[in-house]
């Protein structure tokens, strides 16, 4: 064993070893899937024993399948529903779900960051930086650990709520996803095991490079298990929204893959992964911002300033593609059932979408604001300060357009004064063309802001810098021109052609994001620095902006979840199983807003508890660090964060 270790010590082989270890884990990972396939193969055999073989048509895939399960029960109230007093059962379930989801997302998102941060730390040549990233990753993980147990508790609570309040519905769902639910439970155990090994083995495995690579592999495994867990949970709600794998009476047709691979599951999963990551970044950034405000020493301040920036950056990295993932999801929704799409965008839930638009505008403006204030700690950023107000102007004009509703709310007197339900000027801003243009401009401006942030304290030294800047300017101006031109052009063509215009608009924005940022990074290669970032000098406003960002993330998640869930209207499982309870109606938006705010409040109060737990252990760590280690992050000049 020891010789093997020694053999692995050589730098080349350690990577090979790590790769091998990783593959081993990957194989181990597939083990829990065995029951699924076993069941899948079992199915036809099991039913062929019975003499009566009834065939039915899949409700989505239109394939023939052998009926394997009972039809979806026609639920009756109060027989198939439970109640707690006079509370709305649905609201109770809603809150239980939301809390579980918040903690679940957080617990899944943090290991993703930790993995990236740990990898970045390992790839650093600078020992000090390497240690700094490693500590950061470790600290993230610590926060996530308490949250993990809360997630499990909330998950249990959720299942009990389901069983108590919606037994009929839950039983049916369980009857279809029985094998998957078992795998889910197994995966959960696996996740716990990996998590504990990963966290408690951190310091031990820091000793040798090989062990460190193994540690990172563990992180990959942890994330993979986490993603699979989330995928399974997502399949259930995707099934509820757009079922497949059953016939039109809800009879299971034996193919579990069809029930998992429902029409909307892939976009939902992608959307949720990005959303989770953005949300996790926001939460950690808020945590760091809080520690920053509460910090006593300049070193501590510097550390948490840097941590909040890093977390925010990772969150934002996932936030920017999020609207496009959302767009994709909406396209799939329209493709699945146009009626569902219209209920969302133009029908019953249109005002909720206005609220969601408000949240998106809040997110992007806050983000820009944070970057502007954050540049205050970078020497040389004065060169760009005077442009900020113009960027703000652009953002505000785009936001005004973005938030102009299509249907105006007005009194009869106002209607009379306006001369009709449509305003001749403002009415032009309520349509899709204007909205697409506005959001693309907002995102482009955000990308521009980030590019400026990148170069705030740097002067390019590459020879082609002038040409590079020209090209960069051309990309942004070209993208903005294209977006606005297409937006205006959209008014002059019929609706079916107009829908197609959003694709080139999105492409322009993505060009600025990918090519623009890459080009900017290349220009800044070996750039002359005008001074290091003065970590710890973030303004208080910046910290409060981060809080707003985090709350806005949380709230957006709540409102999007509400939209996604309520678009089923009066169905438990869309078009298969009707909600027969008295709460089958769709709540007005105000009620949803109140519950969302309450949910967010509960979540943050619980998080505060988690953070407080973190500070308890922190004190101990701090004292040991002080006692033993002479060189920690203390007493060392704060290095520049790279980005």
């Amino acid at each position: 064993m020891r010789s093997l270790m020694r053999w692995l010590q050589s730098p080349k082989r350690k990577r090979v070893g790590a790769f091998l270890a990783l593959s081993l884990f990957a194989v181990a990972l597939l083990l829990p899937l065995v029951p699924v396939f076993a069941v899948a193969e079992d199915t036809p055999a099991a039913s062929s024993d019975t003499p009566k073989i009834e065939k039915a048509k899949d409700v989505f895939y239109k394939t023939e399948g052998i009926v394997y399960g009972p039809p979806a029960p026609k639920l009756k109230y109060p027989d198939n529903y439970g109640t707690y007093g006079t509370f709305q059962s649905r609201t109770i379930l809603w809150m239980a779900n939301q809390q579980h989801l918040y903690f679940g997302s957080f617990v899944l998102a943090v290991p993703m960051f930790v993995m990236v941060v740990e990898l970045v730390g390992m790839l650093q040549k600078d020992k000090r930086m390497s240690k700094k990233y490693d500590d950061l990753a470790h600290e993230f993980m610590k926060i996530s650990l308490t949250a993990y147990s809360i997630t499990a508790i909330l998950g249990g609570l959720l299942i009990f709520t389901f069983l108590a309040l919606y037994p009929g519905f839950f039983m049916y769902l369980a009857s279809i996803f029985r094998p998957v639910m078992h795998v889910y439970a197994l995966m959960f155990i696996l996740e716990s095991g990996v998590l504990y090994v990963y966290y408690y083995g951190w310091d031990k495995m820091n000793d040798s490079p090989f062990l460190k690579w193994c540690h990172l592999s563990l992180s990959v495994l942890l994330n993979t298990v986490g993603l699979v867990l989330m995928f399974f949970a997502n399949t259930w709600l995707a099934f509820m929204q757009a079922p497949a794998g059953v016939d039109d009476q809800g009879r299971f047709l034996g193919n579990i893959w069809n029930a998992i691979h429902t029409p909307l599951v892939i976009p939902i999963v992608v959307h949720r992964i990005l959303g989770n990551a953005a949300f996790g970044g926001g939460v950690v950034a808020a945590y760091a911002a809080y520690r920053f405000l509460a910090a006593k020493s300049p070193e501590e301040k510097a550390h948490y300033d840097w941590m909040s920036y890093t977390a925010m950056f990772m969150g934002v990295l996932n936030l920017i593609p999020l609207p496009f993932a959302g767009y994709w999801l909406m396209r799939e929704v329209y493709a699945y059932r146009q009626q569902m799409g219209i209920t969302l965008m133009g029908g019953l839930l249109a005002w909720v979408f206005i609220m969601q638009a408000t949240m998106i505008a809040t997110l992007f403006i806050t983000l820009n604001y944070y970057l502007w204030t954050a540049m205050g700690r970078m020497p040389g950023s004065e060169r760009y300060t005077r442009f900020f107000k113009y960027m703000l102007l652009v953002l505000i004009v785009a936001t005004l357009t973005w938030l102009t509703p299509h249907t105006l709310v007005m009194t009869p007197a106002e209607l009379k004064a306006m001369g009709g339900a449509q305003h001749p000027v403002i009415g032009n801003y309520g349509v899709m063309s204007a909205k697409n243009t506005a959001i693309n401009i907002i995102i482009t401006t955000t990308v521009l802001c980030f590019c400026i942030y990148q170069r705030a304290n740097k002067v390019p030294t590459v020879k082609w810098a002038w040409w590079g800047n020209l090209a960069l300017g051309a990309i942004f101006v070209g993208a903005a021109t294209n977006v606005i031109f297409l937006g205006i052009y959209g008014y002059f063509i019929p609706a079916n052609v107009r829908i197609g215009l959003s694709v080139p608009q999105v492409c322009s924005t993505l060009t600025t994001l990918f090519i623009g940022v890459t080009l900017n990074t290349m220009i800044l290669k070996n750039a002359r620095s005008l001074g290091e970032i003065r970590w710890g000098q973030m303004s208080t406003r910046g910290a409060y902006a981060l809080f707003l960002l985090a709350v806005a993330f949380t709230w957006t998640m709540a409102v999007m979840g509400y939209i996604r869930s309520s678009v089923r209207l009066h169905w438990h499982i869309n078009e298969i199983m009707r909600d027969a309870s008295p709460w089958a109606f769709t709540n007005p938006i105000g009620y949803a807003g109140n519950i969302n705010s309450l949910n967010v409040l509960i979540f943050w109060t619980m998080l505060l508890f988690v953070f407080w737990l973190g500070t308890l252990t922190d004190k101990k760590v701090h004292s040991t660090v002080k006692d033993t280690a002479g060189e920690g992050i203390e007493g060392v000049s704060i290095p520049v964060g790279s980005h």
Partner: protein
Amino acid sequence: MEKKKKGIISKVGMWYLLILAIFAGYTNWLPQIRGDAPEAAVAVDVGTVTPEQLKEMGQKIIFGTDDPEGALRKGETPIGKGSCPLCHRFFMDQKADRCPNLIALPAEQVSSPDPEKLLQMTEEERSYKRPLTERYQSFKEKLSGGEPNSGIKPHATPGGQYLVESEYCPNCFVVAGFAIKGTNDMVSPMPIINKPPIELTDTEIVSVVTFLQTRSGDMSKGTAKESWEAYFGKKLGEAAPGAVAAGGAAPSADSKLALDTDTPDQIVGKMGCFACHKIPGIAVAKIGMVGPLLIEGTNAPNRIKSPEYRKAFKEGKVHATTPKEYVMESIMTPWLFIVPGFQDDMLKDFSKKFTFAALSNMADYLLQQTADKAIKEGLDRLPQEKEGPLKKTAMGNSDKQLAMNN
């Protein structure tokens, strides 16, 4: 220091509460719409409702209100459980262009080339044209094995059947340019109306089609029920074809037939004569503006003598020699002789709906109606009738009293 830290907790907490209050407050300030779950469909016996009721029912399903135009003017889009106005345009000032519009557009609004002027017709008129197009034939060929979602093979005849088919099988014919993108203009974005999520019952669909057919106000165009039955080859309201035998489809069960024992006003009610004709002595038949005033005691003897009728008689088209024969012929085969000034608008299936005795009774009743009776009731001929308005005789109070008692 510790004190300062606590201060920060409360500050941050206040900030959080402020943000949450603003978000929640904003949602409460926005218009509040509660989406109620749809009620279970009301079972309606189509045999007992008049076309007007059917039309109103259709309107309610489409718009969710009896006054869609009023709602539209208030800036709302009236949407009923059929959800049709989300995509289809029903009024000039309504904005919906996802699916084909269901009104006649004025010529200047038609931008694309439209050789057959289909866009300038009402949906009812269009329904007679579309199934005759080559495009429909190509759909028929392509879907000869049955449309995969509904299992229906396109086989609509022009008119109501086309509209019925569009509801049950939107893919059976997709108007050019309105299909889902990338499907080669073949797959409609419209949901199957009798399946979830819209899930209208057969009767409800018939009422919607009736609404579309009779938007012009001409109730005689409301052939939805007949078209439905012809299209599916079964009676409306029967659960499955197999259940026919048990139900006993004897004529007595069908209240749409004029029976031996029916009184004239029952027959007028069942046959919907009042939609087109004014008939003295029948309470409901006071509004018809489509067909001639039915005072056959006065009209019929004159009409058989009229040169137009004599001409048709000589050509062998018509055969009546007595007023009663003339009246019966006009009901059974209305297309053979059209009273001058009118179009061939009358329903042509009465020959299948009258028993012999009922026809005879009805003809007798109509022959008793004369100009005097019409004058007493304040009824007059339509302007286009050749005979001209009835000459009004001075009426005393006693006569008025008499008319009211009638």
